[in-house]
C-alpha cells in the first residue's frame, strides 16, 4: 500500500458529523416471500446507517448484495420487513417529501414511446413545475446530457448509454436535495462516466446529498465521502474513504525525473533508516480512464464526427444556482474550474517550481504521528480565480466537451 500526495482537487466538503441527517436507516431488513408467504430470500439483514446533508454516500457491494433493495426501500418502492427508515424526517412513502428527491434506477424504466423532450416534460409536470420552468429545465438538461440532437426520437430507440443520460436528466428535473443514483455509470462510455462523476461532485458542492449505489469501485472511490460495503445483505464495512483506504505504514513521493546522482542521494538518505527490501521505485502510471479521456479530447479537437450521443454540455444552470445569487455564482466558478481539472492525469506530479509546497508536504508526511494535522493545499489547486483563470478554464472545458463557447 502507498500513500500518494493527493493532488486531486478535493471538493469543498462538509463536516458530516454536524450536518442534519437526511436519511436514517435503523435495523432494516427485507425478506422476499413467495405467494404462500414462505421466506424466499433475505435481501437485506439488519442494516443501520445515516446519510447526512451534503454527503456523497456510497452503497458498495457485489451484485445481489442488497444495495438496490435498500435503495428501493428508501424510495418506498419496497416495504421493509423490519426496521425503520426516515427520509427528511418522514416515511419514504410520504408523497410531499418526494418533491425533494431525484432517482435514477439501475435500468431505464422510462416510457419507451415518449421522446426525451416529452419524458422530461412529463416528469416536470409530476413535480408541478410551471410551463416556463419546465421548458427551461428541459432544454438545459438535454444540453447537459448531450441529447439535444435526439430530442424527438423515442426513448425506446435509444442506446443504453443514451437511456442512462435521459434517466439522469429526469432525476434532476426538480433540482433535488437528495439524489439517489443506482448504478449511474452502467452502460456509459468513459466520457459519460467522467461527466456523471463530475456532476455528482458539482451537486455535492451545492450542498446536495447524493446516495450512490454501485459495484464499480472507481465510481465510488472518485466521488464518495463515505461508503458502506454490502455483502449478503449485511453491512461489512462503513466509514469515510480516508478511514477505510489510507495506509499509514507507507509513503509515496512523486517528482519529475531526477538526475541519477540526485536519486542516489535521496536513496542514500532513505536507506539510512529503512531496509533496502522495503523501498520500491517505479514510474507513476496514469490510470486508463485519464489516458482514454486524454486521447478522446485530442481527437475532439481534431473535429471528429459521431452519430451517437454528444458529450454533455455544462451542468444545467438551475443545478448550479441562479445568476443573481452571489454564493451560488462562486460555486459556479468553482465548478468551471474544477471540471476540467478533474480530467487532468492523476496523480499530478508535484511542480518543481513550488518547493515551498513540497517542503511542507514532506514535513507533514515525515511525521506519521500527526498525518492529517494540517490541511495541505494541493500543488495544482488553482489560486483564487481571476478573470484570466476563468477564461482559461472555460477554454479548457470547451475543448474537452467539444463545445466552443466564444
Amino acid at each position: 500500500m502507498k500513500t500518494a500526495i493527493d493532488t486531486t482537487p478535493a471538493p469543498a466538503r462538509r463536516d458530516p458529523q454536524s450536518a442534519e441527517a437526511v436519511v436514517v436507516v435503523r435495523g432494516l431488513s427485507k425478506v422476499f416471500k413467495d405467494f404462500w408467504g414462505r421466506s424466499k430470500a433475505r435481501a437485506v439483514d439488519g442494516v443501520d446507517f445515516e446519510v447526512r446533508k451534503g454527503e456523497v454516500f456510497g452503497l458498495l457491494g457485489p451484485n445481489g448484495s442488497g444495495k438496490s433493495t435498500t435503495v428501493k426501500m428508501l424510495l418506498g418502492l419496497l416495504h421493509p420487513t423490519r426496521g425503520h427508515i426516515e427520509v427528511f424526517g418522514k416515511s419514504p412513502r410520504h408523497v410531499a417529501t418526494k418533491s425533494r428527491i431525484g432517482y435514477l434506477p439501475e435500468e431505464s424504466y422510462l416510457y419507451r414511446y415518449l421522446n426525451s423532450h416529452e419524458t422530461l416534460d412529463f416528469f416536470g409536470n409530476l413535480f408541478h413545475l410551471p410551463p416556463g420552468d419546465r421548458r427551461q429545465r428541459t432544454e438545459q438538461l438535454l444540453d447537459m446530457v448531450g441529447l439535444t440532437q435526439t430530442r424527438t426520437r423515442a426513448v425506446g430507440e435509444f442506446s443504453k448509454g443514451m437511456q442512462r443520460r435521459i434517466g439522469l436528466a429526469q432525476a434532476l428535473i426538480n433540482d433535488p436535495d437528495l439524489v439517489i443514483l443506482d448504478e449511474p455509470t452502467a452502460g456509459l462510455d468513459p466520457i459519460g462516466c467522467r461527466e456523471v462523476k463530475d456532476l455528482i461532485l458539482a451537486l455535492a458542492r451545492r450542498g446536495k446529498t447524493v446516495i450512490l449505489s454501485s459495484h464499480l469501485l472507481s465510481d465510488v472511490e472518485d466521488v464518495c465521502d463515505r461508503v458502506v460495503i454490502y455483502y449478503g445483505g449485511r453491512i461489512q464495512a462503513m466509514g469515510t474513504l480516508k478511514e477505510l483506504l489510507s495506509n499509514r505504514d507507507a509513503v509515496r513521493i512523486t517528482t519529475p525525473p531526477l538526475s541519477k546522482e540526485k536519486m542516489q542521494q535521496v536513496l542514500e538518505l532513505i536507506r539510512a533508516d529503512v531496509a533496502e527490501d522495503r523501498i520500491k521505485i517505479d514510474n507513476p502510471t496514469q490510470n486508463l480512464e485519464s489516458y482514454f479521456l486524454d486521447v478522446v479530447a485530442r481527437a475532439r479537437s481534431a473535429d471528429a464526427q459521431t452519430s451517437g450521443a454528444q458529450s454533455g454540455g455544462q451542468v444545467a444552470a438551475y443545478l448550479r444556482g441562479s445568476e443573481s445569487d452571489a454564493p451560488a455564482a462562486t460555486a459556479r466558478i468553482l465548478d468551471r474550474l474544477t471540471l476540467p481539472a478533474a480530467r487532468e492525469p492523476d496523480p499530478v506530479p508535484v511542480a518543481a517550481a513550488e518547493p515551498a509546497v513540497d517542503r511542507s508536504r514532506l514535513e507533514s508526511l515525515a511525521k506519521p504521528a500527526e498525518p492529517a494535522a494540517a490541511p495541505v493545499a494541493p500543488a495544482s489547486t488553482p489560486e483564487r480565480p481571476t478573470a484570466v483563470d476563468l477564461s482559461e478554464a472555460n477554454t479548457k472545458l470547451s475543448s474537452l466537451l467539444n463545445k466552443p463557447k466564444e
Partner: protein
Amino acid sequence: MASRNPILRLLIGIAVIPALLRWLLGQRIWAVAALTWRAAFRFRLFWVLTILLLGSVVVLPLLIRDDGTARGFIQIMLTYTLSVITALLGFSTLWLACGTLARDIEDSSMQMVVVKPIGRWQIWLGKFIGIMMLNAVLLALSGLSVYALLQWRAKQLDPRERVILRNEIFVARAALKEPLPDIEGTVNIALQKVMRETPLTPQQQEETRRLLRADISSRHQDVPPNHLRRWTIELGLLRHTLRDTPMFLRVKFHTAQTNNAGTYLGLWNIGPPDSPQVRSVPQSLAADTFHEIEIPPNLFDASGKLTIDFENRNNSALSFPLDEGLEVLYREGGFGLNFIRGLGIVYCWLALLTALGLASASLLSFPVAAFCSISLLLVCLSGGTLSTVVSEGTVTGLDHETGAGGGTVVDLVLLPFFKALLGLVKLVQEVSPIESLSTGRSITWSQLGGAFAKIVLLLGGIISLVGILFFTRRELATTQSQS
C-alpha cells in the same frame, strides 16, 4: 364574424375541454391522463379501434336481414350497430385498462412515477380519466357516424315511411301504464281467508301462496275468448300538452294455444266508453312480440282519462303481461338529444368497465387481470343463464322430471356469488339505452342521472376504492429487487 362560424366555435369548444380538465384535475393527474391518451395513439390502438368501430357501422347494415319494412330495417340497424359499438368499446376498455396499469407495473416504468410527488390514487385516477377521454372520443365518433348513417338512410325513403320513422323511432317517447295491481296484498288476504277455513302447514302455505299468486296474476293478465279487458290510463296534467297530438299503443301478448295463421284477431276500442268518439280498430296481431297502434288525437275525456278496451275474438285466451302488456306512448322530445342520453348511459357502462379493469390490474399481472375481468364481463352478459341458475337454486341444473338437483358444494359457493352478480347486472342494466333508442322510447335526464349515480358513483366508486387500496399497498419493485 369568425366567432359566429359554428365549426370554429365547435373547434374552440373542443380545444377548451382539455384546458378545463387540466384545471379541474390538477397538473399531476392531468399529466398521467395525457400520458395514457398519448400511449393509445403511439401504440396505434386509437386508430385500430376507430377503423373497427367505423367499419362495423358501415358494414353491419349491409349484412342485416330485416322484416322488409323501413321501420324494421332502421330498428335492427340501430340495435345492431349500437350493440357492436358497445361490445367493441367494452372489451377494448377492459383490455386497455388492464394493460395500461399492469404493463406499467411489469416493465417498471411505474416505479419512475411513484417516486415523484404524486399520490398513487392520483396515478390511478389519471389512468382512469385518460381511458375515459379515449372512450369519449371513440364513442362520440362512432355515435356520430351511426346518427349520420340513420339520417342518410331515412332521407332515401319515401315521405310516408319517413313519417312513420319520425313518429315511431326518430323520437323520444315516454310511456304511460295502468298502475300495477297490488298482487301480493290480494294474495295475502286470500291466503288468510283460506287459512281461516283450513289450517295449513308452512309448506302448504307456500304452495297455496304460489297457486294464489298465479291465479290472481292471470286474472289481471288473461283475456279469455270473447271477453273484454279494459285499461284506464290517467294522463293527469299531460292532457293539456297532449291535446291534438297522436299517441301510440304499444302492446304485447302471449297465448297458450297457437293457431294456424299465427296471428290473433282483436278489436281495440279507444276513447270514452259509450261515446260517439270511440274509435274501433280491428287488428290481427302475432303473439310474443311488440306491436304499435296509432291512437288518433283527443280520445281522452275532460279529466284526462284514456280508456282502451280489447275484445278477444279468438278461440284461445290471450295474456297481456302486467309490466309490458300495454303502454301508451307519447312524444316527449327529439331523437338527437335522446340519442346523446343513450350514449351517455353506454358511457357510464364503460366507466364501470374501466374501473373494473384498473382494479384487477392493481392486484394482478396483465394476462391474469385481462382474463379475469373479461370472464366476469362474459358471465354478466349471459344474464339469462345467471337468472336461471339463481331461480333454480343450482349451478349444475335441475332434473326437470324429478325436480331433484342442487345442494352441492359448488352451489353453496357459487350461488351467493351468482345472486350478487345478478343483482349488479340488474342494477347496471336497469335502463337499456339500445332497446329504448331502437323503439323510440325516451331516456330521461333523470334516468341518465340515476345511471350515473348507481353505475359510476356507487358501483364504479366501490370498485375504484378497492383498486386504489390494492395499488397503494402494492410493492412495485418486487420483480427485479434482488440485486
